[in-house]
C-alpha cells in the first residue's frame, strides 16, 4: 500500500520532469502562434539553448550564466525567425525547418570545435547544474516550478492584459490591429521574443537541470511534441498544459510498461509504446476531440500593400 503511494508519487514526479520542457516550449509557442507566427522551430531553439547553457556553465562554472546564455541563444534564433517571417514575410514553416536543421548542425560543429568531444559538452558537476530544491528523488529544480508558474502567467497575459488583447487580435486580423494604430511587426516581434525566452528555459532545463551536459540532438523531437500539445490544447494555455502532462505521463508509463507482458496482448513492443504520443496526437488532431481552430492569420505574412 505504502509503496503503491510512493510509486504513484514517483510516477507523477517523473511525469512532471518529462513534461517540464514541453510545458515551457508550449507556452512559448503559444505566444508565437497566438500572434499569427507558426513556430515549427521550437525544436531548434531548444537545442541551441541547451547547447549554450551547457557550454557556458561548463566554461564559467555557473549554472545561472548557463541559463542566461540559453535564453540569449534561443532569442537569437527567435529573432532570426522573426526577421525571416515578420520583416521579410518568409514562409514560416520553412523558416522553422531551416532553424531546426541549422541548430542540429551548428551545435555539433561548434561543440566539436570547442570541446572536441564530438559535439558533447564536458559533463557538468553539481554547482554547474540546477539541482532539486526540496525533493531530490523528484528532481524538482527551479525550472520545474518555473514551468508550473508559466501556465497561469501565460493565461493571464493573454486574457487579461492589453498586450494579450492585441496579441489575440493580431493573430486573427492584423489589418484591424494596424488600422487601430498599433504596429503589427513590433507586436509580433515581442511575441516571438517571448517564445524565445521560454524555449531558452526549456533548453537550459534539458542540458543543465535534467541532464549534466549537452549531447547532439538531445531534444529528440520534444519541440514537435510541444507543438502538438499547443494544437491539442486548441491554442489555450491550460489545455495545452494538460496535453503536455498527458504526454509526460505517457512517457513515464511507457518506461514502466517496457518489457511488461500485458495479459492477452503479450509483451507490448517498445516501438509501439514509444510511438504512442505521436499516435495520440494524430488521433486527437483528427478532430476526435472536437475541431481545433488555429488563429485565423497564423502562417499568413502580413502585408499592407500586396
Amino acid at each position, binding site marked *: 500500500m505504502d509503496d503503491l503511494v510512493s510509486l504513484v508519487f514517483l510516477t507523477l514526479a517523473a511525469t512532471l520532469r518529462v513534461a517540464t520542457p514541453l510545458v515551457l516550449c508550449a507556452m512559448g509557442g503559444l505566444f508565437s502562434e497566438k500572434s499569427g507566427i507558426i513556430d515549427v522551430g521550437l525544436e531548434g531553439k531548444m537545442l541551441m539553448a541547451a547547447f549554450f547553457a551547457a557550454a557556458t556553465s561548463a566554461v564559467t562554472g555557473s549554472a545561472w550564466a548557463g541559463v542566461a546564455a540559453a535564453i540569449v541563444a534561443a532569442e537569437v534564433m527567435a529573432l*532570426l525567425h522573426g526577421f*525571416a517571417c515578420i520583416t521579410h514575410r518568409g*514562409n514560416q514553416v*520553412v523558416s522553422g525547418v*531551416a532553424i531546426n*536543421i*541549422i541548430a542540429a548542425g551548428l551545435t555539433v*560543429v561548434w561543440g566539436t570545435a570547442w570541446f572536441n568531444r564530438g559535439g558533447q559538452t564536458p559533463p557538468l558537476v553539481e554547482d554547474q547544474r540546477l539541482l532539486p530544491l526540496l525533493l531530490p528523488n523528484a528532481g524538482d529544480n527551479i525550472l520545474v516550478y518555473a514551468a508550473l508558474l508559466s501556465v497561469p502567467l501565460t493565461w493571464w497575459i493573454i486574457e487579461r492584459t492589453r498586450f494579450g488583447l492585441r496579441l489575440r487580435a493580431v493573430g486573427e486580423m492584423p489589418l484591424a490591429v494596424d488600422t487601430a494604430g498599433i504596429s503589427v511587426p513590433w507586436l509580433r516581434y515581442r511575441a516571438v521574443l517571448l517564445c524565445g525566452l521560454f524555449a531558452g528555459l526549456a533548453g537550459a532545463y534539458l542540458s543543465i537541470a535534467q541532464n549534466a551536459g549537452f549531447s547532439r540532438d538531445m531534444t529528440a523531437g520534444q519541440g514537435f511534441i510541444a507543438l502538438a500539445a499547443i*494544437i491539442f490544447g486548441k491554442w489555450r494555455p491550460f489545455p495545452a498544459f494538460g496535453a503536455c502532462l498527458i504526454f509526460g505521463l505517457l512517457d513515464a508509463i511507457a518506461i514502466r510498461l517496457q518489457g511488461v507482458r500485458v495479459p492477452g496482448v503479450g509483451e507490448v513492443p517498445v516501438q509501439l509504446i514509444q510511438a504512442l504520443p*505521436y499516435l495520440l496526437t494524430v488521433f486527437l488532431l483528427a478532430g476526435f476531440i472536437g475541431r481545433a481552430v488555429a488563429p485565423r492569420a497564423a502562417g499568413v505574412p502580413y502585408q499592407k500593400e500586396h
Partner: protein
Amino acid sequence: MNGRRPLPAWAEIAVLPLVNIALAFITVGIIVRIIGVDPLHALQFLVVGAIGSSESIGYTLYYTTNFIFTGLAVAVAFHAGLFNIGGEGQAYIGGLGCGLAILAFDRYLPAPLMIPLAILAAALFGAAWAAVPAWLQAWRGSHIVITTIMFNFLAAALMVYLMVNVLIAPGSMTPQSRNFAASGKLPSMHDTLAAIGIQVAPSALNLSIVLAVLCCIGVWVFLWHTPWGYALRTMGHNPEAAVYGGTNLRHMTMLAMCISGGLAGFVGVNELMGVHQRIVLDFPAGYGFAGIAVALMGRSHPVGIVLAALLFGALQQGGAELAFEIPTITREMVVVIQGLIILFSGALVNMPRPWLQRLFTLRGS
C-alpha cells in the same frame, strides 16, 4: 515594393536563387572562418570533391537522384497548396514496400518483372503513407504539416519494429534484411555503361536516375498539360475557384498527396534496390526535409528542381570529400550548409528582391 517596378520574370527565376545561394555560402564561409579554416581552400575541396573525377560525379548524381525524388514530392504537394513535410517517412515506407516486394518475389521473378514490380510497390507504399495525413486533412481537417511530421516519427518506429522483430536476417549483427537476390538489383550505372562499352569509375549511381528523369517529365506533363494538373494547381492557388470549377477538394487533396508520397517513396528504390540491396534502417537520412529546400529553390518546377537537386547532390558528395580532406570540418558542416540554403532560398527568399529591384530600376532608367 512601392515605387520600384517588379523584377522581370527571368531575374525572378535565374538571378534571385543565385543571390540566395551566394548569401548562404557567404554565411557558411564566415562560420568556416570561425573554426579556423580558409573558406576558399575549403570551397576548392568542395568543388573538386563533387565534380573532380568520374567517380565523384557518379556519387554526386546518385545523391541528386534522391533530391529529385523528394524535391518533386514536395513540389507536387506545393502546387496543390499542401505542405508535405512527411517526405522522410514516405521515403522510408516506400523503401519498405520496395524491399518487401523483392524479399517476397526475388527468388521467383526475373529482373525484368521484379524491378518494375518493386518500383510500383515503392510508389504504392509511399503513397499509402501520405494518404493517411491527406485523408485526415480532407475529411477531419487536421493540420497536414503536423500530421506529416508525426508520420515521420511513426514511420521510424514502425520500421525499427519490423526490422528488429520481423525482417532481420538470422544471425545478422544489425537490423537489416537478407540480401536481395540478383533479380532484385537495379543495375548500377557503371555496369550499364560498361555493357555499351563506356568505362566509368564505379559509384553508387544506378538506373534510378533514369526513373528520376522520367518522374520530372511525368510531373511536368501532369501539372501543366492535363486537366487534373490544371485542377490541382487551381486548388493550390484558390480552393474556392477550384470548387467553382467543379473540382472535389477532398479527392484532389488525396490525389496530390498520393502522387507526392509515391515520388518520395522512390528514394527507397535508389537506396535499397540501387545501392544497399537489402532493407536497412535510416536510409532516408534527411532527404525528405532537404526536398523542401530543393522544391523551394527550384521554384517547384521540374527543371528548377533538377538544378537544385544537382546543387544539393554536389554539396552532399563534395561535403563528404571536404570532411575527408579537412579534419576540423565535420560532416555536420554539410548539414549546416543545407540548413542555411533552406533559410536563404526559402524563408529569406524575399530579402534580396528589393535590392535587385533597385538595381534593375536604376539600370532601367
